[in-house]
C-alpha cells in the first residue's frame, strides 16, 4: 500500500516536471526565434537566464526524485552556498571568525533535525539556542567594538539562509494529506514553482509595462505594474498547479497570492542587504542570475510562511 502511495505521489513530481520542461522548451523556442529577428542583441542575457533555468530545474527535480535524504542534502548545500555568499559580501570583523564557523556548523545540525523529523527541535534550534549562543561566543573574544552589529549580522544570516531554507527540506518529508494525492513533496514543488514563477512574471511585467517605481532606492527594477501584474498572474497561473495540492480553487488563489506577496518582499529585503553591502548581485555562480542567493532570496520569505500555513491548515 505504501509502495502504491509513493508511486502515485512521485507521479505528481513527474507531472510537475513535465510542466516545467514544457515551459522551458517554450521559452527556449521563443528566444531562438527572437534571436533571428533584429532584437537579437537583447536576447543574450535572456538566453543565459533560460539556460541556467534548465540546469537548476534538472538539479532540483533530480534532488526531489532520487530519495528524501538527497532532497535534504540538496537544501543543506543550498544553505551552505547562500550563507557563504552572504558572509562574503557583508563586512565581518577578524573577531567574528569563530562565531562564523559556528554559523556554518549549525547547517548540518539543523538538517539533522529535519532528517530525524524532530519537529520541535527543528523549530527552536536556531531561533532559541543559536540565537543565544552566537553573542555568547562573540563575547568570549572580548571585542566590544561592533559587537551588536556583528551579532545581528550573523543571526540574520543563520535565520534567512539556514533556518528559513531548511523549511523546504522539512516540507519535503511531511506525510500525505488525507485522501488526496498531495504530500509534503508535492507541496514543496508547488511552493518552489510558484515562487520562481512569481519572480519571472514580476520581471516580465515590469520590463514590459513598468512605469511607476516603488521603492527605487532599494531596487530600481520594481514597479507597481510589475507588482500587480506579477502577483495576480502568479495567483491565476497557480491554478494549473492545483493538482499538486489539496486546495480548493479559492484556497489555491489565496495561498499562491500569499507566496507572491512574500516573494516580492523577500526579494526587496535581500536587495536592501545587497545595497547595504555595496554589491549588485551575490556572485557569478549562475550565469545571468548572479549567485545562489539571488535565486533563493524570495524563497527565504515564502518557504517559512507557506510551511506554517500548511502546518496549521493541513497537518
Amino acid at each position: 500500500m505504501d509502495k502504491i502511495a509513493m508511486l502515485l505521489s512521485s507521479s505528481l513530481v513527474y507531472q510537475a516536471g513535465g510542466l516545467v520542461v514544457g515551459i522551458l522548451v517554450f521559452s527556449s523556442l521563443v528566444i531562438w526565434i527572437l534571436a533571428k529577428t533584429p532584437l537579437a542583441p537583447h536576447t543574450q542575457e535572456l538566453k543565459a537566464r533560460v539556460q541556467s533555468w534548465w540546469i537548476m530545474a534538472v538539479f532540483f527535480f533530480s534532488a526531489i526524485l532520487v530519495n528524501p535524504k538527497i532532497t535534504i542534502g540538496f537544501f543543506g548545500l543550498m544553505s551552505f552556498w547562500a550563507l557563504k555568499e552572504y558572509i562574503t559580501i557583508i563586512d565581518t570583523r577578524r573577531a567574528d571568525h569563530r562565531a562564523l564557523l559556528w554559523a556554518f556548523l549549525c547547517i548540518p545540525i539543523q538538517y539533522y533535525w529535519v532528517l530525524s523529523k524532530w519537529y520541535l527541535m527543528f523549530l527552536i534550534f536556531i531561533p532559541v539556542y543559536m540565537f543565544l549562543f552566537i553573542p555568547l561566543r562573540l563575547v568570549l573574544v572580548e571585542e566590544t567594538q561592533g559587537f551588536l552589529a556583528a551579532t545581528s549580522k550573523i543571526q540574520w544570516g543563520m535565520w534567512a539562509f539556514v533556518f528559513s531554507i531548511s523549511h523546504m527540506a522539512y516540507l519535503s518529508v511531511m506525510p500525505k494529506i488525507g485522501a488526496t494525492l498531495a504530500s509534503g513533496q508535492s507541496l514543496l514543488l508547488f511552493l518552489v514553482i510558484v515562487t520562481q514563477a512569481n519572480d519571472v512574471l514580476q520581471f516580465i511585467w515590469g520590463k514590459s509595462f513598468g512605469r511607476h517605481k516603488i521603492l527605487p532606492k532599494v531596487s530600481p527594477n520594481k514597479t507597481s505594474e510589475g507588482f500587480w501584474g506579477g502577483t495576480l498572474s502568479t495567483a491565476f497561473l497557480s491554478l494549473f498547479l492545483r493538482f499538486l495540492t489539496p486546495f480548493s480553487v479559492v484556497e489555491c488563489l489565496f495561498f499562491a497570492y500569499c507566496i507572491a506577496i512574500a516573494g516580492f518582499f523577500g526579494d526587496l529585503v535581500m536587495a536592501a542587504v545587497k545595497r547595504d553591502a555595496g554589491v549588485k548581485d551575490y556572485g557569478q555562480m549562475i550565469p545571468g542570475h548572479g549567485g545562489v542567493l539571488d535565486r533563493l532570496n524570495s524563497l527565504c520569505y515564502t518557504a517559512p510562511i507557506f510551511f506554517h500555513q500548511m502546518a496549521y491548515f493541513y497537518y
Partner: protein
Amino acid sequence: MRKIIRIIFFQLFIRPLLVFFVGVRVSGRENIPLNGSFIIAANHSSHLDTLVLMNLLPVKQLNRIRPVAAADYFMRNPIIYFLSCLFFNIIPIERIKISRGNNPLEVLLAALNRGENLIMFPEGTRCKDLESGEFHSGIAHVAEQLPQVCVVPVYLANMNRALPKGEIFLVPFICEVHIGHPLWLKGTKEEKMKVLKDEILKLKGNAKW
C-alpha cells in the same frame, strides 16, 4: 614517492577543499606560462595563499613549483618542516641571519636553473593589506641574474578572511585570484619592484571584494 604523495594530496584533498568548500574564483588563468621559467609573485595574507597558488597549476607542473618560505618560521619545528616539504615542497630561505654560506639568492637561482618555478611573496610575511606592506627586493635580485625568467603578478582577495593569521579553522569565504600578464622586469632594483607592486595593485582594482 614524495611526488606521488603530493599529487594525491592535492587532487584528493586540496583541490576539492578549495573548489567546493572555499569556492575560489580564478581570472586570468591563461596568463600562467606553460613552459619556460617563471616566478609567481603575490600578496600574502594567509597560509591559504600557497595552497591556492599551487592549485592553479596543472598536475604535471605540481612537482616543479616551489614556494619560497621563511626558514625561521617553517623550520622552527621538525614536524612542520617535514610536512611542509612533503606536501608543499618548500624552499626554506634565511630571513634573519644571512651569511655568505646561506645566501638565499644562490638557493633560488639554483632552483630556477634546475627548471623549477617559484612562488614568492614579496611582502616577506603575511600582511593585512597590500598598500602598507613594503616589497622586499628578492625578486629584483633574481630577475637581475636571470633576465629570461618572467614574473607573474597575482592578487589574492579575501584569503585572510577565510584563514586569518593565528587561526587554525577555515571559514568558507568566497576568495578571488586575479592573475596578470607575465612581466620581464627591467631597470634598477627599485624600479623593478615598483612595476611589480603597481601591477598587483592594478589587479586588486579588478577584485570584487
